[in-house]
Structure formats: structure tokens, C-alpha cells
């Protein structure tokens, strides 16, 4: 299966990745080889097997609803790129 250039560009936009135009062909080939592997897997006969929701055949452990996280804002904000007035600052976003 081959991946079209436009698909690569679309995925790059969604993933916020900058893809150099010159590398699109190479990336397309590499991703296509991954999909070929998927095709091989899909060729396996899985009739009679039920699907897994998770690779580990186990179930989720649950936590009691009790607060035990102290306020560590100072520590977190010390390593943040930009903060002011206790807020994390980001480039202006408007819907």
C-alpha cells in the first residue's frame, strides 16, 4: 500500500510536524513499508479469536476517591517555559 503525498501533509498538519518537502517521498516509502507489515498481519487467520482491548489481558485497577496530591505549583512552574500570575503562558490562542 502506498501513501499519497497529500496524506503525509495532512498527517503532518494534524501532528504539528514540519515535514521538509524533499523528504516526503522517503517518508511515504517508510510509512508504506509499515503498512505492508500490517497487511501481512491482517492476512493471518484470526477466525475464532476474540479481539483484545489491550495487549495485556488484564483489567484496570481502580483508585479510591481521596485527595493526596499536595499543591506543587511552584516546583512545576519553575521548570515551565513561561509563567505569570500563577498561569502557564502560551502564544495567544483564540478560537
Amino acid at each position, binding site marked *: 500500500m502506498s501513501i499519497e503525498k497529500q496524506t503525509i501533509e495532512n498527517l503532518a498538519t494534524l501532528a504539528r510536524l514540519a515535514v521538509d518537502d524533499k523528504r516526503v517521498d522517503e517518508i511515504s516509502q517508510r510509512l508504506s513499508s509499515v503498512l505492508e507489515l500490517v497487511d501481512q498481519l491482517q492476512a493471518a487467520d484470526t477466525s475464532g479469536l476474540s479481539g483484545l482491548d489491550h495487549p495485556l489481558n488484564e483489567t484496570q485497577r*481502580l483508585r479510591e*476517591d481521596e485527595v493526596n*496530591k499536595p499543591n506543587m505549583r511552584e516546583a512545576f512552574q519553575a521548570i515551565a517555559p513561561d509563567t505569570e500570575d500563577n498561569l502557564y503562558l502560551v502564544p495567544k490562542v483564540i478560537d
Partner: protein
Amino acid sequence: MNWETVIGLEVHVQLATKTKIFSAASTAFGAAPNTQACEIDLAMPGTLPVVNKQAIDYAVMFGLAIDAEIGKTSVFERKNYFYPDLPKGYQTTQLEKPIVGAGVVEIQLDNGDTKSIRIHHAHLEEDAGKSLHEGNFRSGVSGIDLNRAGTPLIEIVSEPDMSSAEEAVAFAKKLHSIVTSLGICDGEMSQGSMRFDVNISVRPQGETTLGTRTETKNLNSFKFMEDAIHLEVERQIDLLEEGSEIIQETRLYNGETKVARSMRSKEEANDYRYFPCPDLLPVVISDEHIEQLRSKLPELPDAKQQRFIDQYDLSEYDAGVLSTDATVANYFEQTATQSKNAKLSANWVSGELSARLNAENISITQSPVSAEQLASLIIRIADNSISSKMAKQVFDGIWNGEGDADQIIEARGLKQVSDSGALESMVDEVLANNQAMVDDYINTDADKRKKKLGGFMGQIMKASKGQANPQQVSQILAKKLAELV
């Protein structure tokens, strides 16, 4: 052409857990920015989510309340998109295997009919943080408060079964009533505890295929929702009637300016590339646990309404008003039990008290008049100690913190005189002091004398400083005057 409106709702309900859905940070409302956002909420590398048991239980309780099938194995998935208030770059939510399957909610229409609104499913997910575009920080940037990030939500998705703004509002109010009665949500609309996304389309009357729909997002009041629907339906009909097409898009409605605008085209934004979250295992709920939750379900609004009719002899309307909100229902029941007078309790809770609370814009849990105090007032109305006019004054006194009913009656000297001996001598005195009025009464034709009674009543009530029991005075007066004629 006649147009038909088709409406479906997605309702986000914040669950009333103490901690986040995947971390043990507090969800308390109103904390200082970012003091309740821990390393898991911030998506620090190496952190892993652990699911809150209470959030699972609350979601199951909702499912049981709407007669839905419970997803005994439910799976969390990642919904991928980038926004600064979503630190992980994906929202952990459910898609293929939600915790609550199809169910149904009955709504009452204005004409008294009931209508069934089908629920497609309800799933668990995490809330995002908040982006602030202006504040105490330099301009040209946005500030992010992540306290809300990770607050557990259930998103309830209805089928497109509503055909007017009124039905949509009735449905939203019913959901509010159900989740607050269950105690799984505090129902505080002004704090964003319930938010509505409304999918709206129109089609010619009788047409069976659906028209192109738009989604108006993040409405946080019943009123805004109603206004936004009217506005959008009108916009779509205008466009279609002039031959234009509806573009499938997300719209934002501003309740203050009453204007809606397009937010973004759905085409690209819709590509969320969901996949099962590898950090979380499937959540499995046993039949035994489901039955345990079912046995502990509190009384739901419809059952409560019926019980109020049966137990307290209330009208269907009164019972409906008093059972919709669990906090109002509890207040009413406390008042009725302590005053031993359900009718007066119903009148006062849904009348004077509700009016005052609405006027002051406070909820019944913050009422300055407690149920005990209202009961103390009702006891004095019921035993004729005070007239209904005095009762309003006493209510004001309780509202203003002057004490309970008996203290205020005492302090203001409001006690109604119902002692017949005292009332008789009061009537005698007034008659003796107003001979001219008595003569006039005697000289009036018998069939016109009734009109003259008001003058005497006024004099007597004045003489008693408004404290005489009017019914009794009127009886005594009639008797005394009859003796004189």
C-alpha cells in the same frame, strides 16, 4: 414552506468526585490557579493515570437511572488534538466501548404529554483546563489554568429526538434533575457543572432524511440554550429559503450579546485519530457491583413526584415543582415533617421562599431561612397564632436573621388575638364608641347592610393593632349587630 426542527444534545456533566478522573488532585471549585494540577494532570513524562473508582460508580448510577445497559467492559481511548489547555495532546475519553449504553429519558411537555428521548450512549472522559485571554499578565499571550484539567465528566449523547427549543430545554432540565437527585453532580450551572452542545438541523415538514446540521457548543444555561436554538433555527431556515446551503460547522453562542458565530469547519478538526489508550486497561464492572449500586440508588424525580402526591396529598403540579430538584425536595420534606402541615409547607416553599431565593439569585441550600425556621412559622400560621399578613412579616424577620418565628412574633408583638372573650370585648368597645356608625347600620336596608361591615372591621382591626383574628372578628361582629337590629 413549513419547516421541521430536529435537535440532538450532547451534555457534559461534571461528576461530583473529590479527585480527578486519573489523578488524586482535588476538583474543588474556585481554587487559586494551578494549585490543583498535579504532575499527571500536567502530562509530565513518565506519569501514568489511575482511574477513580467513584467516577466509574457515578457513571454506572446514571446508566441505571435511565434504564441503560451498562458497559461491563469499557475502554478508554485517546482523542488526539492540540490545544494549550490539553497538556497531553489528547483527551482521554471513550468511543467504541462506552460505560453507558442506550437508554431513555422521559420528558413532560407543556401540554401535559410525556415524550421519550432516547439516549444513544454516555461515556466517561476528562475535562480540559481553562484558557484565559486577558488577565493579570502581559498582552499577546494566553494564560492557562489547569485546575479543571482531568475533572471527570460524563458526556450524555441523545438521539435527535427533540423537535423544538422547548423540548430541548425540558430534556436538559430533566437530566439536571436526574443527576442532582443521584448526587453525582452538584448541578451548579454557573460553575460549568453542566454544559450543553446542541446539534440542530431543519427539514421541510414530512421529509424523512435529516438536513445538514450545525453544532452550537458550550452553552451553560437553560436560557442561553433556548435562545441559541431559536436563533440557529431561524438562521438555517432563512438560508434555505433564499436557496443557500447549510455548512456543517461548529458555532459559538454568546449569551450576553445574543450573537452566534462560526468557530471552525468540522472537516479537518474532526480527524481525531482515536485509538485505545495503552496506559489504561479495560475497566471491568461485575454484575454484583452493578446490583450493589442499583440497590443504593436514591429516589429519582419521577418516583418522588408520585410519592409526594400519595404521601402529602399534593397536586401533580406542586409535586412536580417540589420533586425536580433534590435539594428543594429535601427542604420541603423537612419543613413538612416538622410543621406537620404539608399543604402550607408546599405553598411556602414553592411560593414566598422560591420567589425570594430567585430574587436574590441564591440556591435553597444557601437559604437564610432554614427548613426548621420555616416550619416554626408554618406551625404558627396553622394554629391561628398569626394571620397570613403577619406571616409575611415574620418571614422577613427570619430572612433577616432576627431568629425563629416565635422569637420574632414575641419581639414584634405580632401575636394574633384569637381568644373569643377578648375579641368580644374589643368588638363591644368599638360598637360603643361608634354610635353613629351603628345607627347608620340599623337604618340601612337589610340587603345593603353587608356593605357597611367593612367599616366596623377596619375600626376593630385598628383597635387591635392588626392582631385580631379576622375570621373570628367577623363572626362576632355579625352576631352582635344582629342582636342590635
